[in-house]
């Protein structure tokens, strides 16, 4: 971590939900259990993992929709972990969220104009030119017809609704947007449009994103850095190309090899994980992935691996026995253990953006 001061600094972020059956407490559901990561200004961090690994809980913790059990969240140098509503006011403007379900995230009884203007209204902001002009500007920005101001959400398609949600998140000119699976409820054809819109906005407005998704292809398209979560912990975090081409953690490898990629199955084929994800009520001792890990040994049950950078790798992986470096079979272009020669643009090392690198993806 070098260059610019991180915009968002998360240390030891933890959320435990008490689980009750009847009156007796039945223990804690460790949804998120000690996350450390940074997001620099203008950077996109992808948060990937299976269902139930704590991705969405993390997103809600970041925008303080949930109260963290432990750990700290620092935004632009200020500790906001337990800030109260009034203290959060100025911060709300810098930190917004886009939701997964475009059908549930818009109030069905409000017009589009009212929905988009809501953050302005709630914070008592009167933008120059008036609220209505600002709303029209926002609708135009997300590619909607500003004349649709007076329409209701039910008159729009899923993709358009998601654009309305994006316009609402942009209303306060935030610096960081948490996007909680913003495209997974959409048609594949619409997904690309919305992701491209988000990327254009990210570039033009210099937004930082925490992009939560289970679709690795979308994350690869959109994010400069990627964090892989398993059972409430980050198992590997690093720059996109390092994660996708030289994954060190066995879980990341398994995830990547599960991407349906027609005709690109290498000799090693798919890594199949057996068994179920253990319950977060009672996570395994030591390394949480050990129960399904092909490389697990006795030490894995005793000691919890820390998230460290090992050997010649540039990303950090939480594993006692990280993969030595051969690329995943599905990406034969990244040859050799080092692999850096292939990688012309070292992604995300500086605070700058990745226009050259991101341009590789067809738009």
């Amino acid at each position: 971590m070098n260059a610019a001061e991180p915009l968002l600094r998360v240390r030891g972020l933890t959320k435990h939900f008490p689980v009750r059956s009847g009156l007796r407490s039945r223990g804690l559901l460790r949804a998120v259990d000690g996350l450390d990561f940074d997001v620099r200004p203008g950077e996109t961090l992808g948060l990937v993992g299976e269902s139930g690994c704590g991705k969405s809980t993390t997103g809600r913790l970041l925008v303080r929709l949930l109260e963290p059990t432990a750990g700290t969240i620092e935004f632009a140098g200020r500790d906001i972990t337990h800030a109260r509503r009034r203290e959060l006011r100025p911060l709300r403007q810098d930190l917004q969220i886009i939701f997964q379900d475009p059908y549930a995230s818009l109030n069905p009884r409000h017009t589009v104009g009212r929905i988009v203007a809501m953050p302005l209204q709630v914070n008592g902001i009167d933008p120059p030119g008036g609220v209505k002009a600002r709303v029209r500007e926002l609708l135009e920005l997300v590619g909607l017809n500003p004349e649709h101001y007076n329409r209701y959400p039910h008159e729009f398609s899923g993709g358009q609704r998601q654009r309305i949600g994006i316009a609402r998140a942009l209303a306060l000119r935030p610096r960081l947007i948490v996007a909680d699976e913003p495209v997974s409820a959409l048609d594949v054809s619409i997904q690309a449009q919305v992701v491209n819109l988000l990327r254009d906005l990210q570039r033009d407005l210099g937004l930082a994103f925490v992009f939560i998704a289970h679709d690795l292809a979308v994350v690869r398209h959109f994010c400069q850095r990627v964090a892989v979560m398993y059972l409430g912990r980050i198992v590997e975090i690093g720059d996109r190309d390092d994660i996708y081409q030289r994954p060190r953690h066995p879980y990341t490898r398994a995830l990547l090899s599960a991407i349906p990629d027609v005709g690109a199955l290498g000799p090693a084929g798919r890594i199949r994980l057996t068994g179920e994800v253990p319950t977060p009520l009672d996570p395994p001792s030591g390394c949480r992935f050990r129960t399904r890990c092909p490389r697990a040994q006795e030490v894995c049950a005793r000691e919890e691996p820390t998230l460290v950078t090992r050997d010649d790798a540039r990303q950090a992986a939480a594993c006692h026995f990280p993969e030595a470096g051969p690329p995943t079979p599905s990406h034969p272009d990244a040859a050799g253990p080092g692999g850096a020669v292939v990688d012309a643009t070292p992604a995300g090392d500086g605070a700058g953006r990745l226009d050259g690198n991101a341009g590789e993806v067809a738009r």
Partner: protein
Amino acid sequence: MSVSPVDPAALAETGTGPGGDRSGAGFVGRSPGQLAWARLRRDRTGLVSGAMLVFFVLVALAVPLIEWAYGVGPREQFQSRLDGFGMPLGYAGGVTGEHWFGLEPGLGRDIFIRLVHGLRTSLFIAVAAAVTTAVIGVVLGTVAGYLGGWVDAVVNWVTDLTLAMPFLIIALALTPTLALRFYGQRDEVPAAFQIGVLIAVFALFGWTSTARLVRGQVIALREREFVEAARASGAGLGHMLFRQLLPNLWAPILVSFSLAVPAYVTGEAALSFIGVGLTDATPSFGRMIYRSLDYLQTDPAYVFFPGVTIFALVFAFNLFGDALRDALDPKSSR
């Protein structure tokens, strides 16, 4: 900016939108309320029952006008039109051009004008009680549902307590006691006081169902993402309850309101019938039916008019409530 002002892809989506092909040049969004109104207008049952309700309400509002045009007061007695046994002269309980619905046996009062007055009393009590219960229920339901925790627990506990109290027994015990407390043994209890006590008794027992209904709705809405979006933008409690939640609650509130009114009409009639509601001085359905029972065999016309009117009123309200629910929430199954 690389974002084009109007994304062609988004515009292409617009064309296929439900309203897009119809509205053409001027984009006029149809609000959920307008859609419900359009659905209601297509529903014939709803229209007929609605028209009946409008008629009843107009009659109730125009009572002084009707009385003036009809030329007979509710307490006027026409003893000269009764025979020696106190039964009205003529056919069907004394129906004539002057007395449209005939006369009461015994006292000889005009049934039509008493019916109209009774309609006004009943509708006023029922609507006032329904409004009061709706307000109490909505406030308690939203607060309990949204805040949860101990507030919810307390409201639930009070709801259970209220439901456990026997309505009839308390109404029977409370009404005379209150009257005695304020007006003594001999004084005449004014009609306004009796009406107020009736409304209070209904409000005391009636809010529970609305509160439960609203609480459930709020709990379901609370987890919706648009509520979280407002919270993430820093909205306060007032904005949450009144701007975000309440507009989504109008449908169930309206339906429960329109179904509560007929229940209170019959409730008032029942209480007046067993003698704890209104006295004979105030014309009401319950008292009229109670008095008519003595003459069920000798003068069946007396029970016919108030009976049919109360039936029509309650029936119209119930049908309209159903139609309203269908219009507001077409996806719900009955």
